[in-house]
């Protein structure tokens, strides 16, 4: 099958890097004037140093108005739910890396329900399930079981786990999976090899072709992203993330896409970032992606400070996590090691009231189980019922 890998190999990193850095004022102005309708060329211009130094304010204004037109005055909230910190990969930037001497934990289904009960009480209806990458301990069966366990309680379930096969994604989809986040981390192959030392994640190509497998499996939404700071030329990294998304959107046109902009932060297996992304760089990235893709979901996590998150809100952000814990069992006060340090430590209610004060409606629910019913029922099935049988969560919590 043709995948993005075939296109990726024909685009040279150095050529892109040079193209970005030699962008002219005129090219940036034109990209802004035509609201990014010039496609990947406009995107390249918007990522340039000259766009950063001379056009950041007009980019921000355009990004703001495009976002409001498409998404309105509303922000969607979700919570990450860490299922396991088991991992077979050695990656030099991650707290879950195999070599790290930390307490390993995988939630039992009872523990999972306890965490779910806490999130439910906080008001969450969209949950992202996260694991390390351990096919043996948190393989397809475990993930599928977890989705089935949580399905009655949440409208929308996403995962961020090891890359799977197309058929495996199909199985999860029929259990109620909505979206999959799979960050390439970096599109620079040399840098990728330096940071992903052992385990299945060291296979760059397998990871790169994952969104194609998701597209073929018909998963509703695919989340892409880079871990900025791994590779020095972050502008080129962002270009490839955009290029990848553009390819996917043309090919899997029924699928929705989301983009995140995590920056490398200190954690247990600490390494100093190759490059430190400044706040203004994050602003440029958000605006460039928004102008390039008006309907892209843009997500900002609690890795960023509350102050910066509040400032980034009007620039193009559509989705946020809040009150996050990044260790398995974290919501129930379990103290196993977290994957990365939380910077915005406000409670969910603090975040939601801040959003309302800033003039945003807080959207807790933007999906419904009935949308997935046709996965498991025939059209003429008379036994359709809209409510799923579910035990009382308070017992588990």
């Amino acid at each position, binding site marked *: 099958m043709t995948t993005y890998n075939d296109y990726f190999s024909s685009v040279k990193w150095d050529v892109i890097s040079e193209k970005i850095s030699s962008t002219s004022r005129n090219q940036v102005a034109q990209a802004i004037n035509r609201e990014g309708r010039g496609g990947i060329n406009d995107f390249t211009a918007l990522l340039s140093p000259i766009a950063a130094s001379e056009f950041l304010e007009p980019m921000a204004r355009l990004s703001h108005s495009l976002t409001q037109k498409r998404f*309105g005055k509303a922000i969607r909230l979700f919570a990450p739910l860490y299922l396991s910190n088991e991992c077979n990969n050695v990656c030099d930037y991650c707290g879950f890396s195999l070599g790290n001497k930390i307490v390993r934990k995988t939630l039992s289904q009872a523990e999972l329900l306890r965490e779910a009960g806490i999130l439910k009480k906080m008001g969450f209806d969209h949950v992202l399930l996260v694991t390390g990458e351990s096919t043996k301990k948190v393989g397809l069966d475990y993930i599928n079981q977890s989705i089935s366990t949580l399905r009655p309680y949440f409208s929308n379930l996403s995962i961020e786990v090891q890359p799977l096969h197309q058929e495996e994604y199909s199985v999860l989809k029929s259990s109620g999976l909505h979206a999959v986040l799979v960050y390439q981390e970096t599109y620079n192959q040399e840098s990728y090899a330096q940071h992903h030392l052992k385990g299945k994640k060291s296979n760059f190509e397998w990871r790169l072709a994952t969104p194609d497998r998701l597209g073929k499996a018909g998963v509703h939404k695919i989340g892409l992203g880079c871990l900025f700071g791994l590779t020095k030329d972050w502008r080129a990294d962002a270009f490839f993330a955009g290029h990848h998304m553009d390819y996917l959107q043309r090919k899997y046109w029924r699928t929705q896409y989301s983009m995140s902009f995590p920056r490398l932060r200190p954690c247990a297996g600490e390494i100093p970032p190759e490059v430190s992304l400044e706040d203004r760089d994050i602003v440029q990235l958000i605006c460039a992606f928004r102008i390039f893709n008006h309907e892209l979901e843009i997500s900002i996590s609690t890795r960023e400070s509350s102050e910066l998150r509040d400032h980034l809100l009007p620039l193009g952000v559509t989705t946020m996590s809040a009150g996050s814990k990044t260790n398995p069992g974290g919501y129930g006060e379990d103290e196993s090691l977290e994957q990365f340090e939380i910077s915005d430590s406000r409670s969910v209610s603090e975040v939601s009231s801040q959003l309302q004060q800033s003039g945003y409606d807080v959207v807790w*629910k933007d999906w419904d189980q009935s*949308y997935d*019913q046709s996965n498991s029922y025939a059209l003429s099935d008379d036994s359709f019922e809209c409510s799923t049988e579910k035990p009382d969560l308070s017992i588990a919590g």
Partner: protein
Amino acid sequence: MNSEKLEIAGEKFDSRLFVGTGKFSSGETLSQVIEYTGTEMVTVAMKRANIGDESRDSILPHIQKSGVRILPNTSGVRDAKEAVFVARMAREALETNWLKLEIHPDPKYLMPDPVETLLATEELAKEGFIILPYCHADPVLCKKLEDAGASAVMPLGSAIGSNRGLDSREFLRIIIEQASLPVIIDAGIGRPSHAAEAMEMGASAVLVNTALAVSGDPLKMATAFKDAVRAGHTAFVAGIGSESSTAQPTSPLTNFLS
């Protein structure tokens, strides 16, 4: 469609302005906008409806008012099969058989799928739904939707949320000319003049959302739309003089006949 009151499936409406509910900054604003527009038909996406937890639903509790019909919609479904399930859920949860049928498999421009929309209309009509399908400004499709059992058609002016107005004007004209059902122009209406234009053309009603929700002052804009819809419809009923691109000759060429 010349009568003063809009009639759909035997029910009469004074207001010809329908309101969509996404994108507002709060339930309170939405609630006020409904009052200011005087709308009697408000649509809500079932994926946003939080039936079990009203405290986390900034739409439904704010639109359940007397004199306002709630029109659930299937926004987010990708095919007829999904639409049918969501429609049944909507009927059960909101106790209404009215439905705005929306099937847009393309999340980019949210273009309605004509094939799936027709299939779902056929199926849902059999199940007794009052269906208002969102569709392209395609005159043949609109006639087929009529045949399939729709109670009105909702062709687009331009892409959802685009504020571009009536890009599809010429095809809307044909649809209105041929229709035996109410024609409600949905999507793309970005300013009151667009709404007035649709009504002057003879549309039965218009649906507005983004233009209200993201305006600097949604309440003032609500009043502006209310006035524009009323003005456009009144002008249509009054009869608008035909336009001419050339001046009338002072000495008509056929004068010699008299």
